[in-house]
């Protein structure tokens, strides 16, 4: 035994940096008079305390309450442990796996109170933060997390802040990002120089007179305007070139949120969570808060968000009403975050722009989440979630390129996976450039550059080509829907045998045809495709996605109807007659009408028939309208069943009779809401019939169609009938989750279907 005794070496993992862990440990050790030290090391926290000490048991108990993820070992000391317990400088170490990065956290209740407290030093300080809140990943330059490794480094804490930092009794004891109005980054107007109070007053005045205000948020720039002002919203939409897609609304508190929407406890928890996401909730019909019609038309839901920073608080409090809050960018580019670029461009996006000098290192969009019948789903994984590291046994060292829509990439090392934040649609150059920059930044942070890569099978995807240029090793292809299925396989507690449904708008099938209504039977790790909808054509290819009436006409054609039986209905929907006639000829001749069996397109067609949606303005527009219509119907026994026909070992879902029944019912002036609901029921019944045919009790749901809240709740109701429903709570079921699915598909050997 060494002359200095033996220490207990403790390594703590998980979300342990940037959360005030070390100062809490120091307080605990000091309260027990325990010598030793603690420091951030890599992405972990390491500490040493005496292996024999009367207070050791109490210390370990206290430590376990802070975090359960401990590993202990004994270590012979070659010098004495420091007394009192000391926080040592952080240590960078090479990692053999991926790092757990610190999460960005929205302003906490204590800081909100301080912000409003005139006696506090940080009264009305827009960049107020503490152990529990503030930017982390957004400003991180390298690990481990400490002030010197963030973009806050140039700002030296003033003597008062230094004193608070050193004072174990202070709330901000050892708070890495400590700052105050005197020593912290200053809020100012772009294009002018003004001190804090003036800048924010100017911003408030701009909002109050119906202007569009640019604001630098925790992870990028945003555009805000009063949500009650239809003209302001119209101007904001013009500036963004986003005429139709719903906009999120920033509210001051959960109480204010309750005035706009009917909220469950789970939804309030999501609103107030540190990730501070946009939560999709059901609008309240009897709201007393005026919200302009053009904020989120065509859907029964609205996206609400609570303030993320003190700056948000200043604005939403100052104006006294909800504010539209959306990313600052023109449609087709990613959100703006660079100060120099915003300085050049803010005039085209807003009337005034509030910014500050703290650089954002990793731009991230706000996350979007929803909770249906108690089950949470992340629709967009951005700020507040993108730091999280996932466990994926067998993942190897691979860079997965995901898909083109709602792009996010992922890389793996030693059974761990990082999914990038939501990037956007890869069609445009600015988004692709952002992807490259984020890839570089994350690869650097994790010190990880895998040579092997995986990509979607689709040869026309931009990511397909980018994957090939990025590395010398030929990328492995993973079929789109197999990746969707694999995602659930990795993340959900599924048994050895289950049925996986991958339903979405489109995905390149193994023969280059358009898949989208796939059912796979998974048993003993093997994947077998067993069912799909009967195929139909998409006249005009991509044009059929923008114009769902084309799909509707195609369904009429394939159901054996004559043109005169369906033309009138479409004419009433203001589809030009010449266009209808040309498309019908295309169907008859098979001209530029590629085959598909996409569930998403089926929804589009039904939506077109039952609502006013003959043109889709954004992804999911048509099905959202259909869901909105269906949700006004309480319940109905009516159903439009899809029958199964077995052909060469595949179960083909015949939608033709359902379509014809739907059209007939429409003709008889049945309430379209009932028909919309009945259509949803029919789809569910098809899924359940398949479950019965294959004798499974577990259904795995993936693909963008399962973002439909009505489908979700109808399926969840089936849990009382012994069916278990599975979808991942932490990764999107839409194409945003493809990359992780691709990694799992590789690990499972699902790059070729059986």
């Amino acid at each position, binding site marked *: 035994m060494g002359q200095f005794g033996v220490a207990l070496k403790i390594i703590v993992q998980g979300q342990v940096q940037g959360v005030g862990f070390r100062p809490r440990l120091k307080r605990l050790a000091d309260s027990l008079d325990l010598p030793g030290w603690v420091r951030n090391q890599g992405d972990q926290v390491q500490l040493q305390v005496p292996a024999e000490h009367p207070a050791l048991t109490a210390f370990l108990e206290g430590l376990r309450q802070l975090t359960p993820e401990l590993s202990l070992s004994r270590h012979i000391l070659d010098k004495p442990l420091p007394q009192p317990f000391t926080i040592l400088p952080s240590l960078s170490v090479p990692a053999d796996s991926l790092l757990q990065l610190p999460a960005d956290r929205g302003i906490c209740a204590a800081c909100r109170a301080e912000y409003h407290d005139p006696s506090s030093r940080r009264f009305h300080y827009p960049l107020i933060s503490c152990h529990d809140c503030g930017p982390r990943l957004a400003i991180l330059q390298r690990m481990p997390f400490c002030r010197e490794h963030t973009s806050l480094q140039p700002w030296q804490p003033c003597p008062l802040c230094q004193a608070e930092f050193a004072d174990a009794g202070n709330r901000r004891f050892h708070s890495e990002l400590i700052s105050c109005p005197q020593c912290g980054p200053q809020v100012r107007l772009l294009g002018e120089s003004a001190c804090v109070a003036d800048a924010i007053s100017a911003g408030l005045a701009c909002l109050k007179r119906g202007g569009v205000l640019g604001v630098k948020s925790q992870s990028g720039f945003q555009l805000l305007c009063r949500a009650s002002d239809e003209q302001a919203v119209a101007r904001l939409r013009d500036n963004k*070139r986003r005429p139709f897609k719903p906009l999120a609304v920033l509210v001051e508190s959960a109480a204010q949120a309750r005035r706009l929407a009917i909220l469950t406890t789970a939804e309030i928890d999501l609103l107030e969570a540190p990730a501070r996401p946009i939560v999709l909730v059901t609008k309240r019909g009897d709201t007393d808060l005026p919200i302009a019609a053009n904020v989120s038309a065509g859907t029964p839901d609205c996206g609400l968000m609570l303030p993320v920073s003190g700056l948000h608080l200043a604005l939403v409090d100052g104006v006294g009403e909800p504010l539209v809050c959306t990313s600052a960018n*023109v*449609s*087709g*580019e990613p959100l703006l975050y660079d100060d120099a670029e915003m300085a050049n461009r803010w005039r085209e996006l807003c009337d005034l722009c509030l910014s500050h000098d703290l650089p954002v290192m990793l731009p991230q969009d706000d996350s979007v989440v929803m909770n249906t019948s108690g089950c949470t789903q992340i629709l967009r994984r951005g700020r507040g979630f993108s730091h999280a590291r996932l466990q994926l046994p067998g993942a190897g060292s691979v860079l997965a390129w995901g898909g083109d829509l709602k792009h996010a990439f992922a890389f793996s090392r030693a059974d761990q996976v990082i999914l990038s934040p939501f990037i956007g649609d890869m*069609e*445009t*150059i*600015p988004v*692709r450039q952002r992807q490259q920059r984020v890839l570089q930044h994350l690869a650097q942070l994790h010190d990880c550059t895998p040579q092997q890569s995986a990509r979607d099978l*689709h*040869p*026309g995807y*931009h990511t397909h*080509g980018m994957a090939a240029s990025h590395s010398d090793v030929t990328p492995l292809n993973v079929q789109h829907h197999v990746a969707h299925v694999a995602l659930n396989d990795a993340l959900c507690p599924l048994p050895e045998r289950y049925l996986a449904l991958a339903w979405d708008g489109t995905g390149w099938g193994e023969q280059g045809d358009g898949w989208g209504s796939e059912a796979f039977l998974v048993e003993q790790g093997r994947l077998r495709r067993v069912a799909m909808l009967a195929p139909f054509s998409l*006249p*005009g*290819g*991509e*044009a*059929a996605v923008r114009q769902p009436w084309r799909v509707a006409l195609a369904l009429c054609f394939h159901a054996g109807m004559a043109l005169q039986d369906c033309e009138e209905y479409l004419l009433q929907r203001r589809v030009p007659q*010449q*266009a209808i*006639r*040309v*498309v019908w*000829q*295309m169907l008859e*001749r098979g*001209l*530029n009408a*590629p085959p598909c069996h996409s569930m998403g397109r089926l929804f589009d067609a039904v939506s077109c028939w039952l609502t006013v949606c003959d043109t889709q303005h954004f992804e999911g527009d048509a099905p959202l309208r259909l869901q909105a219509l269906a949700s006004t119907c309480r319940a109905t026994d009516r159903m439009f069943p899809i029958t199964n026909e077995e052909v060469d070992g595949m179960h083909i879902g015949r939608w033709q009779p359902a379509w014809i029944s739907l059209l007939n019912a429409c003709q008889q002036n049945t309430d379209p809401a009932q028909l919309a609901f009945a259509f949803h029921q029919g789809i569910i019944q098809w899924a359940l019939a398949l479950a019965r045919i294959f004798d499974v009790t577990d259904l795995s749901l993936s693909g963008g169609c399962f973002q439909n809240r009505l489908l979700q709740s109808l399926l969840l109701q089936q849990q009382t009938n012994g069916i278990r429903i599975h979808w991942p709570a932490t990764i999107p079921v839409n194409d945003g989750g493809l990359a992780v699915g691709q990694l799992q598909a590789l690990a499972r050997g699902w790059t070729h279907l059986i």
Partner: protein
Amino acid sequence: MTDERILLIHGSGGESTRQLIQQRLLPACGNEWLNPLTDAAVLPLLQGRPVFTTDGYVVSPPFFPGGDIGMLSVIGTCNDLAMMGAIPRWLSLSFILEESLPLERFDKILTSIRSAADEAGVQIVTGDTKVVERGKADQIFITTAGVGELLLPAPLQPSRIQPGDAILLSNDIGRHGMAVLARREGIQLDLDLQSDVALLSPLIQALVQQGIELHCARDLTRGGLGGALLELATQSGCGFQVNEVDIPVVPAVAAACEWLGFDPLFVANEGCCVLFVPASQASAASEVLQQFHAGRWATRIGTVTEACKDVRLKNAFGIQRPLSWHTVDQLPRIC
């Protein structure tokens, strides 16, 4: 022997063949080099360098709105020569005829060839005729070869494209492909869609004569404007930035493409070319082109850049996307 249709015997090399040539081909195409009907034409020396090209024409249907396979074969070959900066001089024509092709149709094609050759100022100096059984060829296939004369100090070619050059388009796009497709598929569009087939050599020569420093030219046939730009970017090693809003598309083509789900960028043309000139001469060049009917919509559409290596399209809001080969099958049997 008079018969209403092409028969196998017309290709046998005997009396029927001789009559076909004497009574139909020579009156239409004849000249001092073709008339002797020797195995090959012995041509005079050219002042400039000889430029040589070949092409095959299988357009279906052979008669389409605005043109036919005959004039297309002459004009298309002349245009290929003109794209190098050469003046078209001599053509060869090789016919593969399907047994039972109506002679009247063949005559019309020959007449069309004659007009086109006269307009282009070229001579058909040698040729061949074969006949195959019914079903082995779709009415008529024409293979050509063409010789042109390059009087410029250097040919037009992709290696001469330089960063900063202006990218010009000689006319609107998409008319040929849409017109042919509509006729072939029998789709009633109720639109006035005519092929844009037109001779481009006079336009090139006019530019040269007006002192425009032409670096490169390419006619937009299969693959359309998009295909030509992608090829040229690779061949020149340069990047192109193109403004979508500056690309002229007539309403009839826009409507047809919209209804049928095609992108005008990848639809074939037969009387349109993309040109690369120094930026300072862009306006002057456009004005020269606009003097011609085949250049009435001539305009600048973009710039050659060092900033990238691919072709980028900028939309009305200034957002760029990269141009890539369409995953949709390109239209078959367009030229």
